[in-house]
């Protein structure tokens, strides 16, 4: 990355008056205009809003004011973040025509920091998917190979950053939806600790797992965006009420204890060159003074099963409100119940319907204990097992995605194969911990591979330190 293309570089240049925010935004809008017909990373490009915001930043600089740490930096927003007056679709027909009357806390904060939202990014419908092929508006393509998926569900955000639409993007991560597409598109993606970033204005998929986080081309850029958006929020009861400690710029990992999670690395389904990348990263960290060992976190093996009960259960409730009564799509019918049913049938795609049905079943009388209740117990076990691992290790390491980016259509007919794309990322969400994906070379097919750095709850500082070290190792 050149200094002028990173968020850190752009913000510095805009703050000093060396570059105008308007020129930065125009330059990035031009990239979007040139490439998005092919990639389809965006549902909506906010041309007028972005230029107006840029002019406001330039005016602040001209007045000698502090234009903020993200001054003039274009940011792509996943299209499940509410933006006042701007269509927010979740890539679903059911939100047809809906323009939120309010703006998500994270978007308010990045605006306050001088950041400039430039586009709403494509996603798997309601963030349910791992390839962005579940979008009602068509799939996003991977900028590294347009015959392949960008991962998902924040595939639009990851592709946008990889293609240079913006140095930064916001995504949401319920089971890996930031980290997995980041890995497949060769960018940095961060899932912060649950509650570290306000969810107010994030259209809910699974409330106890959803977390907003940054995607960026560098670890420092990701840190810059995270620090702009995180912290307590009176509008979100689940937001952690204390102020987070600053991430700092440390890269020293001497003496640090790092564990490679066996259950996420040494198992069937992990591509050999993906595993090899983790080993090379580990060797590099070892060379930098860290002590790297294998560690077992046994209950991780049950993460996927538990996740596919808890997430659909919460989703079945969260998505009930799309009933045609108040906003979005309505298919008229003779009575209310039929109108509800027809609207939902026409408005939701196949994967969303599948998960609503799964979740409804899991919560049903007589099945609750066997499914939802049992899954919550697994969650408790995962938290316990991680806690034991973190007694011995500062951070953990694993692949982010089991494979490189796969071709479009390769897994759409097989939901289970698709679900396995998130096998390495899901345990972090269940535990409420933090984790991030750092690009680390390429795999057998010449496509990006990501290494996942996992840390305990509120362990972002040490996680970023190790991520910077991984970034510095020549893959």
């Amino acid at each position, binding site marked *: 990355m050149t200094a002028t293309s990173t968020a850190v570089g752009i913000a510095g240049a805009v703050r000093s008056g060396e570059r105008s925010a308007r020129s930065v935004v125009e330059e990035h809008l031009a990239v979007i205009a040139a490439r998005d017909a092919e990639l389809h990373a965006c549902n909506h490009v906010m041309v007028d809003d972005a230029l107006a915001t840029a002019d406001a930043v330039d005016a602040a600089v001209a007045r000698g004011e502090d234009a903020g740490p993200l001054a003039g930096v274009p940011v792509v927003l996943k299209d499940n973040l*509410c933006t006042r007056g701007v269509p927010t679709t979740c890539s679903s027909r059911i939100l047809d025509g809906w323009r939120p009357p309010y703006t998500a806390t994270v978007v308010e904060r990045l605006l306050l920091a001088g950041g400039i939202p430039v586009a709403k990014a494509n996603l798997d419908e309601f963030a349910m998917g791992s390839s962005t092929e579940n979008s009602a508006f068509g799939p996003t393509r991977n900028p590294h190979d347009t015959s392949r998926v960008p991962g998902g569900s924040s595939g639009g955000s990851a592709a946008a950053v990889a293609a240079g639409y913006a140095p930064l993007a916001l995504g949401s991560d319920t089971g890996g939806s930031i980290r997995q597409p980041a890995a497949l598109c060769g960018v940095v993606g961060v899932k912060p600790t649950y509650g570290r970033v306000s969810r107010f204005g994030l259209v809910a998929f699974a409330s106890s797992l959803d977390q907003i986080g940054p995607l960026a081309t560098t670890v420092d850029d990701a840190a810059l965006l995270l620090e702009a958006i995180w912290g307590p929020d009176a509008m*979100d009861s689940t937001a952690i009420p204390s102020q987070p400690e600053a991430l700092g710029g440390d890269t020293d990992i001497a003496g640090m204890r790092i564990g490679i999670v066996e259950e996420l690395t040494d198992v069937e389904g992990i591509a050999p060159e993906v595993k090899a990348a983790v080993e090379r990263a580990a060797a590099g960290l070892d060379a930098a003074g860290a002590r790297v060992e294998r560690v077992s976190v046994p209950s991780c093996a049950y993460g996927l099963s538990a996740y596919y009960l808890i997430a659909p259960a919460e989703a079945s409730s969260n998505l009930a409100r799309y009933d045609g009564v108040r906003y979005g799509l309505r298919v008229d019918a003779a009575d209310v119940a039929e109108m509800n049913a027809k609207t939902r049938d026409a408005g939701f795609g196949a994967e969303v319907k599948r998960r609503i049905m799964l979740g409804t079943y899991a919560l049903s009388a007589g099945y609750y204990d066997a499914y939802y209740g049992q899954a919550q117990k697994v969650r408790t076990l995962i938290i316990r097992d991680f806690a034991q691992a973190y007694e011995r290790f500062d951070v953990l390491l694993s692949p982010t995605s089991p494979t490189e980016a796969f071709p479009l259509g390769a897994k759409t007919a097989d939901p289970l194969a698709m679900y396995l794309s998130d096998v390495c990322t899901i345990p972090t969400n269940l535990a409420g911990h933090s984790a991030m994906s750092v690009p680390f070379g390429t795999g057998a097919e010449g496509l990006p591979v990501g290494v996942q750095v996992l840390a305990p709850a509120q362990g972002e500082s040490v996680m970023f330190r190790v991520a910077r070290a991984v970034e510095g190792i020549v893959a």
Partner: protein
Amino acid sequence: MTSSNVYEAVIGLEVHVELATTTKLFCGCANEFGAEPNTHVCPVCLGLPGSLPVLNRRVVDFALRLGEALHFDVPPSSIFHRKNYFYPDMPKDYQVSQYDAPICVDGWLEVDGDRIGIERAHMEEDTGKTTHVGGGGRIHDAAHSLVDYNRAGVPLMEIVSRPHIRSAEQARDYVGELRAVLEAIGVSDVKMEEGSMRVDANLSLREVGSEILGTKVEVKNMNSLRSLGRAIDHEIARQARMLDAGERVLQETRHWDEAAGVTHGMRSKEGSSDYRYFPEPDLVPVAPTQQMRDAARAAVPELPAAKRARLVEEWGISESDARVLVESAALARYAEAAVLAGALGKDVANWCLGEVLAHCNEHGLSAEVLPLAPDGLAELVGLVADGTLSRNLAKEVLRECLTRPVRPRQLVEERGLAQVSDEGELAALVDEVLGANAAAVQEWRDGDDKARKRKRGFLMGEVMKASKGKGNPQVLNRLLDDRLR
């Protein structure tokens, strides 16, 4: 009915009360009845995508106060659940409520010497209000329906009694006492007619002496204490008739039809009621601090039962008068303030239960907003006590003082209403009246006891009339007796 000796009713009541907080349960919208439709709404109470609930601390304070007043246990922490079902007046198509971990558990309320157990009280959000347009105003034949979400998210407490109630009368007494408690602790307006207090009854019959419960029927839509009593009596009779005829009572929800005086089975909802409860992930557990608990305890005033006992003792009024007085917390406060201003309790109670209560009821007013301040009532009581004002004229004075801002003494002076006790003045008046009614006097002299009594009453009335109501009745009586000897 023959069966009334055979069966015993087993009744439990679910009481929903809207809490009188300034704002709603999970957002900052005004909690106000009667505003233009859909004017007290925001992304949160409309359940817009991406919105999140934040618990109103005041609601917890009110719940804790209720916990104190009804002898509940308040566990260290309670949680909210989601109750999932589709209904257009529910913005999220789930209701945020408390389920198996409510804030208040295991309380009781004493009603006429019986301790009625209360299983739980929990916090939940109210729904919006649907109006069906066209047809008979019912959903099935309506042309369309309009939804007002002003009420959506208004805080409710649901108070669930144990099945300890045995009759319609006891049910009414329980709800009446509960209403008095809720009003006294200041957590609700408790207006059944406006829907800020709603009562559902669960009712079954069993043979007297049996420990086995019968099939339970839930009765809804009673909007006054009177209709609650009627509905229960009707339902007891209906079930008794069925049991007598050897029929089985169906477990169902029935709707009370006030006009027809009967209950109707409600059309059962499709797919029955699997609410798929699960813990609300958007909220954190409610863990009241010791400080909050202490504040709640301090905020509970003297409760109605204690107040009644005290008024009977201190003012020498009857148990039933005390009950009526204390039923309205505002009226009780009014009376107590008048006593504090120096008037005798028994007199104050009489006026409050007579003219003041009648005036409040007639105009739908709370005693708090009367133009006559409590010390004004005390002034009136004083004027009667010291003989300045007759009881009859005092009534007139009070009526006027309740409608416009004027003090009793001022009115008495303006109108020259002060009572006349001067014997000479009154004696002349009596002589004049007797002279003008010689025939009646003669009839009194010739009549038997009964006729004498009648004629004496007539003459006393004429004398009082001649004094324009101002003559001291004691003096007039004595003077009249002297002359009729």
